[in-house]
């Protein structure tokens, strides 16, 4: 069976201060047609870099190894022209800050129709018509007036909807969404997520959704991949992840969330800080912060293993009984 998107043993090194730094290590994940896969992680975990790699949007001096395939075809040997075509027709990205990704001196209408007019030779009027229809679909009233407005006249939530509409215009099979709601207010976030959810159902679009918010990922996606220090440490379904996390990092992350409905006397915290891939020690990247660390964790890198439908990268995954809520600690809390 071919996957829509298959990332296979992807490793990426980037140059900072004239030195190569690892940012992704042996990342493997797949996205099926009409499936939403979330990449969840803290800063430096490599979640954004994974999405950027898929569209070849890495900085110029990046080194990439492994394979990325779309619809069964490898993208690794693509020329820059192929990439451009791929981005213009098959896959598109929504960024965190819409204001930074829309040219402030162009009208909304010009921004939306540019790709259609230039890449697909569509008539300008026809393109504007389509743009207006799409704006209405993403919940923007008075679309025709909006097309004549400039980005600064629209609120952040409004602009993010415009971004979504711009992505829909090229009818991609895959959307890469990089923290698309992080800069928005909660009520606007709910709205934008609802729109994305509807569109996915109607258009059968697949999505790679990048977020730091576990709850959001759980509410919105079919599968969740948890990233830490450039590795994927666990891939699971939202239900599975929240009831029985397999990786100590996932469990600790879940337990350290502040709960909306109850006050926790003391949040179970993870000591230390999240590491970037290049800072990770040899062996398991999480060993320094892990309450279950053993000698073997420092000796060898755990390989991904399949346990009960989930994939986990932990030496002790099969023996540990982890829980996800602070209240139900089974005597294993490290606090």
């Amino acid at each position, binding site marked *: 069976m071919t996957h829509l998107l298959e990332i296979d043993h992807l490793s990426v090194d980037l140059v900072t201060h004239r030195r190569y730094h690892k940012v992704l290590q042996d990342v493997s994940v797949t996205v099926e047609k009409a499936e939403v896969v979330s990449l969840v992680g*803290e800063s430096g975990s490599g979640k954004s870099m994974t999405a950027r790699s898929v569209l070849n949007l890495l900085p110029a001096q990046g080194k990439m190894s492994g394979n990325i395939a779309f619809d069964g075809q490898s993208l690794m040997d693509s020329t820059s022209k192929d990439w451009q075509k791929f981005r213009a027709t098959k896959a598109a990205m929504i960024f965190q800050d819409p204001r930074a990704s829309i040219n402030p001196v162009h009208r909304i209408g010009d921004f939306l129709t540019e790709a259609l007019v230039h890449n697909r030779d569509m008539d300008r009027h026809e393109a504007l018509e389509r743009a207006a229809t799409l704006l209405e679909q993403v919940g923007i009233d008075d679309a025709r007036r909006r097309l004549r407005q400039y980005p600064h006249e629209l609120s952040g939530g409004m602009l993010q909807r415009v971004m979504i509409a711009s992505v829909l215009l090229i009818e991609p099979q895959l959307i890469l969404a990089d923290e698309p709601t992080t800069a928005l207010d909660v009520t606007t976030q*709910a*709205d934008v997520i609802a729109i994305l959810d509807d569109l996915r159902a109607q258009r059968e679009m697949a999505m790679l959704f990048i977020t730091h918010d576990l*709850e*959001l990922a759980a509410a919105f996606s079919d599968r969740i991949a948890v990233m830490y220090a450039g590795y994927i440490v666990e891939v699971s379904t939202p239900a599975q992840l929240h009831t029985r996390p397999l990786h100590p990092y996932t469990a600790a992350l879940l337990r350290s969330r*502040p709960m909306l409905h109850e006050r926790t006397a003391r949040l179970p915290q993870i000591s*230390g*800080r*999240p590491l970037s891939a290049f800072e990770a020690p040899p062996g398991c990247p999480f060993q320094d912060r892990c309450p279950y660390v053993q000698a073997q964790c420092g000796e060898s890198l755990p390989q991904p293993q399949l346990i009960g439908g989930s994939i986990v990268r932990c030496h002790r995954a099969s023996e540990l009984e982890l829980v996800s809520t602070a209240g139900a600690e089974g005597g294993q809390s490290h606090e």
Partner: protein
Amino acid sequence: MSDATSNTATANKVRRVDGPAVEVAGLRKVFRVSGGAGGRRHRDFVAVEGASFSLEQGHSLGIVGESGSGKTTIARMLVGIEKASGGTMNVAGRDRSAAAKSTSERRRRGSEMQIVFQDPYTSLDPRQSINGCINEVLKLHLTMTEPERRQRIIELLDQVGLTERQGLVLPKNLSGGQRQRVAIARALAAEPAVLVLDEAVSALDVSIQAQIINLLNDIRERTNMAYIFISHNLAVVRQVTDQTLVLKKGVVVEQGDTEKILDAPEDDYTKLLLASVPEPGWKPRRVNVD
């Protein structure tokens, strides 16, 4: 890095005040914005309209709302980096409704109320070592000898979970979470009665956020300091505050006990805010609030 805190009895210093730590009545802020293209006309934009609240010593008040709700404006008026257009503010028993006239008055207000900002990357002077940063505050507010100050710096760093060695470095050598700890230590150094936390945990990673929330709760328990905790994150507000005030476009729509507001909200807007928080089984609805 060590976890939160060890118990240093000497570190529990806070200014004692009689009566409420903070009393605010009818607080108002109007911004003048230039209207239209090329026009000389001005439009008044009401950022905060008649906010009133009072906060007892040792308690914690959450101010929640979305962007443009005026929550940060209230914080800025309280600490004096924004001038109030109307209403009265009383902190630690002294009036601060009008802007401070003299440096000594500003310093006095600084010793009554301190603030921690959202972005740990811009809230410390990049050229000043951590020790230098705290030392400057101690010199400003307290009469101490050099060795006393050195001792106090170590206590303060320890209180926020930083080592003596970390005091020697520049901010760029610390992570975001560690910098936020420094910002908290700097605020505590003035021994204020009230600490304003303006989205102080919002920019942090989840695992770091938990550390800082625990730290803040520890400090309040030990020092009896009052907090004004400004946040858009209701789950965090639940963990840190006992009273809450909900703002919508500058107007207070609901205020009371945090538990009550989050468990049984009365106002529609509060309900909408709560319904918008993603949680297991959450199904977002399309609502147009723009």
